[in-house]
């Protein structure tokens, strides 16, 4: 099993693959219908879909909301890796709990409350995937800034996407140089495999030592460059904000999106009544 594991870890998670997926997710799909929308409208939309499902416990309404967010996620053309992480996350939040509760004498009736919980979690996560993965980072941070979020948060988002590929490459280089210089223990026997795993983990921990020093230098350069541009004062100055946010525009497309959302939600809430009347 350990062999399968280490194969898993080492093969699937090549750092190049990760970097490609993350970058593709961030910058690869800015021509989707979702990415073209105004970030402010999308954030308000998210505020609804991120909060309201928690208050609803009707399965039909939740199912409707879930279908809608699934459709928007499809429209946003999110990278497969993100969807995989989403599925894993939903399962680890609620799926395993069902299995464990079976051991404690639960039965299928346990499934209904857990289904409600799963639908809630899934709807909220899909809404966030739509908004935060569908938008490109500059638009997202501008939208957050418009709502008066701390400048540090929107700076962090913009900075993260730019620094991440560099940091990943650097970590990979350090790991490779450790691998070149060191000698991995033979992993034919079980003891050897354990030692091999320990060796890998140790290498990762040790490679953070040079990485920390390098990143320290880099963050000093970044901050000094920001200070030269008057970052800390510009962040709170309304005139600067006005120039920065002048690209935001909400028009007909946004109105259409909002109307469709509202109609669908109204339909979801009305569905039980309609069914009652019909039957």
């Amino acid at each position: 099993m350990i062999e399968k594991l280490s194969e898993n870890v080492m093969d699937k998670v090549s750092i190049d693959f990760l970097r490609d997926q993350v970058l593709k997710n961030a910058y690869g799909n800015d021509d989707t219908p979702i990415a073209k929308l105004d970030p402010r409208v999308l954030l308000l939309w998210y505020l609804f879909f991120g909060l309201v499902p928690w208050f609803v416990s009707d399965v039909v309404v939740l199912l409707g909301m879930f279908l809608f967010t699934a459709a928007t996620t499809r429209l946003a053309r999110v990278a497969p890796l993100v969807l995989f992480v989403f599925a894993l996350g939903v399962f680890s939040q609620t799926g395993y709990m069902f299995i464990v509760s079976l051991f404690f004498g639960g039965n299928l009736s346990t499934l209904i409350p857990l289904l409600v919980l799963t639908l809630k979690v899934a709807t909220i996560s899909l809404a966030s995937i739509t908004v935060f993965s569908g938008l490109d980072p500059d638009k997202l941070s501008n939208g957050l800034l418009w709502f008066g979020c701390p400048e540090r948060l929107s700076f962090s988002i913009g900075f993260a996407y730019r620094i991440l590929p560099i940091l990943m490459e650097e970590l990979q280089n350090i790991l490779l140089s450790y691998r070149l210089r060191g000698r991995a223990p033979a992993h034919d026997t079980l003891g050897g495999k354990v030692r091999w795993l320990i060796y890998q983990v140790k290498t990762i921990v040790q490679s953070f030592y040079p990485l920390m020093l390098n990143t320290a230098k880099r963050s000093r350069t970044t901050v000094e460059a920001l200070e030269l541009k008057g970052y800390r004062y510009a962040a709170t100055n309304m005139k600067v904000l006005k120039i920065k946010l002048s690209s935001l525009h909400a028009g007909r497309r946004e109105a259409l999106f909002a109307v469709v959302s509202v109609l669908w939600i109204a339909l979801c809430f009305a569905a039980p009544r309609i069914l009652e009347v019909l039957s």
Partner: protein
Amino acid sequence: MSSIAERGATQSQKLMVFVLSMSLYGLATLISELIPSIQIGIVELSVEFFLFIPLTLAMLFDPLSAALGAATGELVFSEIMLGQFGGLGELEKFLTVTIGVYIAGLMVRNPKSVKQVAIAAITGPAIQLAMSAVVDIVKVQVAVDDFEAVAGLPESVFATEGFAFLNDLCFSGILFCLLPTLFLVPRLYGKIEPLLGCKPRTADNDAVPALSGHVIGWSVVGFIVAIVVACVSKAGMSIIEWEAEWAESQTAIFVGIAVAAVIALVAGFWARRSAQLKNA
């Protein structure tokens, strides 16, 4: 002026620590989010615990900046970038990570003392894990309506959470927090500080506030906020139910009024903000 700069960290140095901690911990959480966790029997050896990075930085630099940077990094890199942003739920994680790392950083007065570093490096994660276990239990109790009525659910939640806490603390806590921190702090001490242009922390020039009742008070407040945030759904539910009971026939009207109020608030905020930016 110079004495201030020498003793404590300046604003720009704090920003540097923030950026450093954010990018490093963000990278680590992003990677760990994607690596499947390792199962040996029923013991889960999750690699998700790269907490040694912010712990080390909090012990060497200004603890608050390092703690906030780590929490922001996790939020931005592994939640927002991967689209895993859970809304209010993330606030709870943000607060517990910040409190755990900040307290660990404050506990170390002298980074050269192995004993202090070791105690802080295990206490920080313990605090963080305990808080998130409590929040998880409360969250499930709140989210599932008839929690007590569902057969086997309460016991299973307590069992899984309690077991996860002990398991995380014993395995991840020691392997990924205690040992790496003990390895990194003495090596980085005196080397990394000049890169950010500040003096190493010593026992006597310490400008970092001591671990006082004040800090503990704020941490407790933060923890309570985290629980309240987790419970907000239940509270919201009962308010709505209460309204419905109070005026059964007028429910529709009240819902209408609430929706109208929310729309008016949003529109008002939108107009105000636009005007603010226009007049700037």
